[in-house]
């Protein structure tokens, strides 16, 4: 039996009443747990790390939350002067309707009336910082709105630099003319729910077969030069053994597919039951499984902790897809800072970086001659290839009432726009475990 060891102090919320309470990272054996006690509702523990990589090495010298800091977090959330990161991406819900009924859904679609186009346009004018903003149109499922092309062009007119569509891909597959209109309106790229390479996974998570539709959606987006990043929700026992296959599929679909953005399941919104540790999938496990399931083609050392958000919130890997395979560009020792705990990156810089990779810049042409073997070390070839076939492997671990860590929340750069307020994503969708 291992002796529990407190390795970090932070603040969290009671999963039942959502009050702000002290919490600790406690190491027991090879696992690290976020543990906390509410005077009213008792003791709670959630696994947050399984030590495939030492957690201390991953977090580096990230500042800890002090006793007198962020006292109104998360109750009064709407980013305040104490928030430690700017807005990288703004999420705007344009509908609560959806054409799927998933077992897991952070937004828990409710099928209420859509906000009017005029209302959405007013929000876009409010949220846009001309020349900078990356707005994610989300929902519900945004493509259920026939006026989505008008919303996209309004976002561009308001000055949004990038317009991202978060979609399950169904209408993108079934209505190519609609995809054309989205492209013409100025859509920058799509984040498409894509949980795995077989329909058994789709049936378990989404209730229906979707794979053929997803493939068609990728094809339709490619026809209009819209980059697609695949977004799997990772659920232990459902698709965590499909990571290697999924990455091989995505790489084979480059340059139409721009990357894979993994989201370990989190338990807010619509979830089947209160989470136990066995149904949690930690970032370090994901990284380990990526290396093992790709047989070392993608290595853990090339996936580096987020420096825009908190390191425990995600990672990113930057690659270029070559005719013979994938080459890493990012790595622990290619960063200008030290391997971990280097200076946080501004939201502006982060946005510019990710958008550069996710957007298809021009219709790619073969970037090498027919007679010579492409060589990534050739400066001219590299510059062409990285623009056409850049590929990202990223992850974002959303927090729920069980594992909410305010040290992480105060570094959040993904903000939901709600009636003039910018609210960190995990604070916005936070729901208590009584499911009220």
């Amino acid at each position, binding site marked *: 039996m291992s002796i529990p060891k407190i390795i970090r102090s932070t603040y969290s919320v009671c999963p039942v009443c959502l009050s702000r309470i002290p919490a600790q990272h406690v190491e027991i054996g090879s696992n690290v747990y976020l543990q906390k006690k509410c005077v009213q509702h008792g003791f709670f523990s959630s696994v947050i790390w399984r030590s495939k990589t030492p957690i201390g090495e991953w977090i580096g010298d990230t500042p800890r939350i002090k006793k007198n800091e962020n006292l109104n977090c998360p109750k009064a959330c709407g980013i305040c002067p104490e928030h430690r990161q700017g807005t990288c991406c703004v999420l705007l819900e344009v509908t609560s309707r959806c054409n799927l009924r998933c077992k897991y859904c952070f937004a828990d679609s409710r099928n209420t009336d859509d906000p009017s186009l005029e209302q959405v346009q007013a929000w876009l004018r409010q949220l846009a910082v001309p020349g900078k903003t990356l707005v994610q149109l989300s929902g519900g499922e945004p493509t259920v709105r026939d006026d989505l092309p008008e919303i996209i062009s309004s976002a561009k007119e308001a000055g949004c630099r990038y317009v991202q569509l978060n979609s399950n891909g169904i209408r993108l597959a079934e209505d190519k003319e609609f995809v054309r209109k989205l492209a013409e309106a100025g859509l920058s790229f799509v984040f498409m729910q894509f949980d795995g390479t077989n329909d058994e996974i789709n049936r378990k998570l989404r209730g229906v077969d979707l794979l053929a539709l997803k493939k068609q959606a990728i094809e339709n987006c490619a026809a209009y030069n819209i980059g697609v990043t695949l977004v799997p929700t990772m659920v232990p026992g459902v698709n965590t053994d499909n990571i290697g296959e999924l990455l091989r599929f995505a790489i084979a679909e480059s340059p139409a597919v721009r990357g894979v953005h993994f989201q370990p399941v989190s338990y807010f919104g619509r979830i089947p039951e209160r989470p136990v540790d066995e149904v949690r999938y930690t970032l370090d496990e994901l990284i380990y499984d990526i290396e093992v399931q790709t047989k070392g083609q993608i290595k853990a050392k090339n996936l580096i902790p987020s420096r825009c958000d908190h390191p425990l919130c995600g990672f990113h890997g*930057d690659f270029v897809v070559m005719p013979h395979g994938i080459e890493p560009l990012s790595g622990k020792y290619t960063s*200008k800072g030290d391997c971990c705990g280097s200076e946080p990156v501004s939201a502006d810089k982060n946005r510019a970086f990710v958008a550069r990779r996710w957007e298809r810049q021009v219709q790619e042409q073969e970037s090498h001659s027919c007679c010579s073997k492409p060589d990534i070390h050739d*400066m001219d070839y*590299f510059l062409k290839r990285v623009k056409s076939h850049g590929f990202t492997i990223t992850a974002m671990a959303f927090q729920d009432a069980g594992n909410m860590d305010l040290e992480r929340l105060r570094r959040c750069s993904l903000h939901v726009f709600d009636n003039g307020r910018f609210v960190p994503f995990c604070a916005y969708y936070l729901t208590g475990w009584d499911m009220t």
Partner: protein
Amino acid sequence: MADNKVIICCKCKKELIPKKVYFKYLGHSFFTDILKCPDCGEVFIPEELVKGRMAEVEMQLEDK
């Protein structure tokens, strides 16, 4: 090469000739043709290369 100017090595007084030269940045290496002294190996890196393609390579590689 940007133009056809003849450039002479200040040490060896030999004309620089285009050669494949490797650069290293953040653990990656790249080559391109630039002017190099055939005797001592001194290279001439024109400003447009520094501000153009080399800067672009830096931007593409820099960790976000």
